[in-house]
C-alpha cells in the first residue's frame, strides 16, 4: 500500500486531488465535532445579510447565521450523503454485477433488464417517490441517489468481471475445485478493486452534483441543517442582494467535485493502466 500512496503523490493530478479531498474530509470531521467558528444554527438576526467581515469571514445569511460554519457543516452533510449513497450503490451494484457476470444467462438477462428499467426511469420521479413514501430527510436523499447509481455500478462491475472470468487463474481455481464464493471473492472481487475505486471517486463527484440538484428542487436536505446543495438553492433568490451566499457554496461544490475528479483520474492511471482497456 505504501507504494500506492507514493505513486499517487507523484501523479500530477493525484497530488492536487488527494489534497483537496483530504482537506474536505478534515473540514467535515471538524464540523461534526462542533469545531466551527460559530454554531451553524445560531441565528444572530440583527447581523443578517452582512458581507464578508472580520467577525464572519464569509458573511452571514438571511437569518444572520455564519456562512463559513454552515459551509463546514454543509460539506460534512454533503460528504455524508455522497459517501453513504455511493457506498450503498457500490455494494448493491457490485453484488448484482458480479453475480450477473458469473451466472450469466437468465439471471444476467434479468438483472440487466432491471437495470435498464431503473436507468430509463426519470431520476426526479424516483427521488420524489422516495421522499414522499419515506418522508424527507438526509436518509431519503441517500436512498434516492443510491437508487440512481446502482445501475451504473452494476454495469461498471459486470464488464471487467466478464473478462476476468475468462482468465486462466480462474480456470485454475475451478480446476482445484475452489468454491464459487471463494472464486467470486478472492479472484473476481480483488481484481475489480481497480475499476471500482475509479468509478467510486467519479460517482462521488456526481453525487455532489445530484444532491445539489435535488436540493434546488426542494427534495434534498432538510433545513435548518445545511448541505452544499441546499445553501446553493437558498442563495438563488438572494443572488443580487447577497452574492456571497451563492459564490462561496458554488466554489465549495466546484472544488469538491474537482478534487474527486482529479483523484479519480489519478487512480485510473495508477491502479490499472491496462484495466482501462477492459472496462466495457
Amino acid at each position: 500500500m505504501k507504494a500506492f500512496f507514493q505513486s499517487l503523490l507523484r501523479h500530477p493530478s493525484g497530488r492536487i486531488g488527494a489534497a483537496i479531498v483530504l482537506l474536505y474530509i478534515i473540514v467535515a470531521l471538524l464540523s461534526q465535532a462542533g469545531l466551527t467558528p460559530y454554531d451553524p444554527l445560531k441565528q444572530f438576526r440583527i447581523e443578517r445579510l452582512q458581507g464578508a467581515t472580520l467577525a464572519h469571514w464569509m458573511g452571514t445569511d438571511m437569518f444572520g447565521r455564519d456562512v463559513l460554519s454552515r459551509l463546514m457543516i454543509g460539506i460534512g452533510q454533503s460528504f455524508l450523503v455522497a459517501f453513504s449513497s455511493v457506498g450503498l450503490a457500490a455494494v448493491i451494484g457490485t453484488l448484482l454485477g458480479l453475480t450477473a457476470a458469473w451466472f450469466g444467462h437468465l439471471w444476467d438477462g434479468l438483472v440487466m433488464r432491471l437495470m435498464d428499467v431503473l436507468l430509463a426511469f426519470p431520476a426526479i420521479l424516483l427521488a420524489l417517490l422516495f421522499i414522499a413514501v419515506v418522508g424527507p430527510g438526509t436518509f431519503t436523499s441517500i436512498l434516492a441517489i443510491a437508487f440512481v447509481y446502482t445501475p451504473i455500478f452494476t454495469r461498471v462491475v459486470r464488464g471487467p468481471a466478464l473478462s476476468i472470468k475468462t482468465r486462466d487463474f480462474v480456470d485454475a481455481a475451478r480446476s482445484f475445485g475452489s468454491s464459487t464464493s471463494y472464486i467470486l471473492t478472492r479472484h473476481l472481487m480483488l481484481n475489480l478493486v481497480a475499476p471500482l475505486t475509479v468509478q467510486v471517486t467519479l460517482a462521488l463527484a456526481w453525487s455532489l452534483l445530484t444532491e445539489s440538484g435535488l436540493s434546488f428542487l426542494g427534495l434534498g436536505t432538510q433545513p435548518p441543517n445545511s448541505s452544499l446543495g441546499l445553501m446553493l438553492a437558498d442563495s438563488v433568490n438572494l443572488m443580487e442582494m447577497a452574492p456571497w451566499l451563492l459564490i462561496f457554496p458554488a466554489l465549495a461544490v466546484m472544488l469538491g467535485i474537482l478534487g474527486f475528479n482529479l483523484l479519480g483520474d489519478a487512480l485510473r492511471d495508477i491502479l490499472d493502466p491496462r484495466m482501462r482497456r477492459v472496462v466495457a
Partner: protein
Amino acid sequence: MNYLIRRLVTFPLVMFGVSVLVFVAIRLVPGDSITAMLGTEAGLLTPEQRQSLAVYFGLDQGWFSQYWRWLSGVFSGNLGISVTYGKPVLDVILERFPLTLELAVLAMVIALGIGLPLGVFAATRNEKRSDLAVRIFAMIGQSTPSFVIGLLIIFALSAGFGILPAMGQFVPFLEDPLGNLSQLILPAMTLGLSFTASVTRISRSAVLDVLGDDYVRTARAKGAPKARVIWRHALPNALIPVVTLSGVEFGYLLGGAVLVEQIFALPGLGRLVLDAILQRDYALVQGSVLFVALNFMIVNLLVDLTYVMLDPRIRLGGRA
C-alpha cells in the same frame, strides 16, 4: 441482424417494468389529483362531491382495473386523457417533445463538436502543457452544477446587457430559425458544457489506448503521415467508448433536463413530467414516463447499431 432482433425482444419487457413502476410510484405518493386541484379547499368537499370528483379523475376504480384499462389503451396508442391539459396525453407529449429533442441534439452537437477534437488534440500532445490545460478545462466544466451555470448566464445577460433569449414559449425552428436558435443556444450550452468535459476525457484516453495498438504501428510502417494515422486509423477505433458515453447521456437529455428547463423557463419534457407529478395528473405522468423510457431504449438501440456499424467484428460475427 438477429443480434438486433434479440435486442428488440427485450423492449416490451423493460417497458412493462417501467409501466408497473410508474403506475405504482405515482399512486404511492400521498395526495391525489383532487388535493392537487383544490389544495386545502378540498377539505370543504362533502363525501358525495369527493366521490363525483373521484369518478371525474378515474380514481374510483381499483388499482388493478385502472392499470389494465390504461395498459390496453397504451397498446392501441391511446395513453389516456390528461386532466390538466384537457387533451390526449400523446398530443401533449408530442407538443413538448420537439423542444427537448432539439435541446438534446444541440447539447450533443456542442459537446461532441468541442469535446472530440479537444480530446484527440490532448491525446496527441500527450503530457505536454497543452494536454494538461485541456484536462483542467475539462475538469472545471464537469465540476460545476448545471443550474449554477444557467443562473449565472441569465443573471449576467439580463443585468449586464439587458438582452435575453425569448423565454416561456418554444419558437419552432422551422418558423423562426434565428429566434429558435437564440432561445436554445444558451440552455444548450449550459447542458452541453459538463458533457463536453466528459467527452474530452473519454476521447483522450480512448485515443491514447488506440495509439498503443499494433495496427497503428503497421500504418506508420506503411509510411502513413501523422494526421492520417490519427484520423484514418486511430479515431474510428477510439469512437466506441465515446459512442457508449454519448448514448447514455443522450438518453438522459431526451428525458428532459428539468433544472435547465426550469431556469430558462422552457416548456420541455422534463418540466412536463415534473408538473404532471406535482399536479398528480396520473395519465400524463404514466404516459410521459413511458415515452421517456421508450426514448431511452431507442437511443440504447441506436448506440448498439453504431457499434455494429463501427466494428465489423460485431457485425459479421465469427470467421467467414
